[in-house]
């Protein structure tokens, strides 16, 4: 573990990616504390370009874009954390159980995985939204999480299958350990690096998926997010009116966060796999 930390701190991709994520996270957490206004309050002159008072300018209605951006970052991280977390938990549980148990349990879980895998998630979410209505960010994250776990389950199952046949698993069974304990203490630690990378990819995927949903108008109705900001900008013809400060910050923000996550992912891959390490 210590060698991994050492290589992680020496790896420029990991450090750089992590710094970008941390900077955005801190901005999202701290900036809204310095104002009494909500992200959708009308606080300034309409359609003002970036200035000393309104750093990112204002919308057609005089909403502070910097304030929207900072609050939007919060929901972006929340969606990533919750959506990625739910997908990781569901995918890993199903993958571990299917791979370790085998037999009929494996067949059933595999069938479930394949069914969810071939469902067109976007189409299903559009339909779900029209029927149920997704009002809050956590609800959106829940639905995203419930649709993005299948590939995790398949990958974890495959790894578990190969680890299960190792003799140390037999030895743990002979020591009287229960299946769940064996999965937790013998199998999972052998793929901990892979599980971490999986979560990072799921996090980035959830952020992108949420942005897509928000942009086509299926975002949470009661809050603000980066995707929702872009959706508003398009609806009120920001592009034609030349209000570039309305859509550039959220666009850049999403790109930077997801890009930084992926760069970090590549870097961590190098950290965990000695063959990829740069000297």
């Amino acid at each position, binding site marked *: 573990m210590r060698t991994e930390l050492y290589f992680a701190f020496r790896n420029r991709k990991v450090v750089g990616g992590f710094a970008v994520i941390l900077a955005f996270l801190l901005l999202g957490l701290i900036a809204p504390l310095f104002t009494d206004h909500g992200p959708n309050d009308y606080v300034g002159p309409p359609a003002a370009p970036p200035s000393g008072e309104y750093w990112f300018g204002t919308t057609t209605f005089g909403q502070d874009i910097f304030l929207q951006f900072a609050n939007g970052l919060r929901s972006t991280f929340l969606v990533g954390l919750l959506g990625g977390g739910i997908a990781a938990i569901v995918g890993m549980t199903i993958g571990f159980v299917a791979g370790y148990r085998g037999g009929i349990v494996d067949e059933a879980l595999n069938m479930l995985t394949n069914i969810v895998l071939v469902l067109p998630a976007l189409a299903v979410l559009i339909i779900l939204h029209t029927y149920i209505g997704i009002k809050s960010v956590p609800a959106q994250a829940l639905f995203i999480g419930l649709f993005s776990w299948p590939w995790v389950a398949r990958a974890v199952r495959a790894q578990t299958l190969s680890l299960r046949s190792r*003799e*140390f698993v*037999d*030895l*743990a*069974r*002979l*020591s009287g*350990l229960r299946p769940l304990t064996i999965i937790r203490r*013998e199998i999972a630690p052998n793929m901990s690096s892979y599980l971490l990378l999986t979560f990072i990819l799921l996090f980035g995927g959830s952020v992108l998926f949420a942005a897509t949903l928000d942009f086509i108008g299926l975002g949470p109705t009661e809050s603000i997010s980066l995707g929702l900001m872009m959706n508003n900008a398009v609806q009120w013809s920001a592009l034609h009116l030349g209000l570039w400060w309305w859509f550039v910050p959220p666009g850049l923000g999403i790109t930077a966060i997801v890009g930084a996550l992926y760069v970090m992912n590549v870097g961590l891959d190098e950290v965990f796999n000695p063959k990829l390490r740069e000297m």
Partner: protein
Amino acid sequence: MLTLEAISKVYKVGAFGGRELTAVQEVSFAVGPGEVVSLIGESGSGKSTIGRMVLRLASVTKGRIVFDGTDVSRHTGARLKAYRKKVQGVFQDPFSSYNPIFKADRVLHMIRDSFFPGVSASQWRTKLEESLDAVRLDPGQVLGKYPHQLSGGQLQRLLIARALLLDIELLVADEIISMLDASTRIDVLNLLAELKERGLGILFITHDLSLGHYLSDRSVILRRGEVVEIGPTTEVFANPKHDYTKMLLASVPQLHRKWDMA
């Protein structure tokens, strides 16, 4: 002590488990206290499967495994755990028997956590030293090390010490010296002989006839999941009755004979 009564193992293979593959067919033999029984056969003869069934790592399709008068072949939960207090195994590959990311002595602590949660630290210490002493390992040399820092022979002996922590009556030794180099082999073999002297029954699974001959009281020759010959080792080796046994014996390389085109 241990009696196998016509045990079989049938695997379902192919799509939807349509076809059946019989790995072990109605095998019966017994292992008594202080007795070493060799299970000899080529790859795929089902010898490891029998070992795994005795250890209850593989399910038993048909037949009974009777241990000290009770059929253990369907035991689960607490009763299975009690059985494993008496019967333990050591496997072929010492390096894959240890979880590579943890220290090697973890296998010993696992026994404590699982079977002796109430034992005090000092009592456990004495127990540990006793069993390490029995396999002639120096605690200072093996405790607190990672598997890759120890030799194959040390790892196998550590696994035997692990089994000795429990009051076992039967040890299933599945090819335990096949992956050791020639000089450490004999040490581990002699160690098994000592355990036998202490009254431990050993099911010694091997494909190497000379190893089987060196150690065992009785031999079971397996072929394609069936017993072809069974009897006292000296008899089986001196006077093989079955053609397959004769062929096996003829194919053992001899120390004093060179290869020749014949």
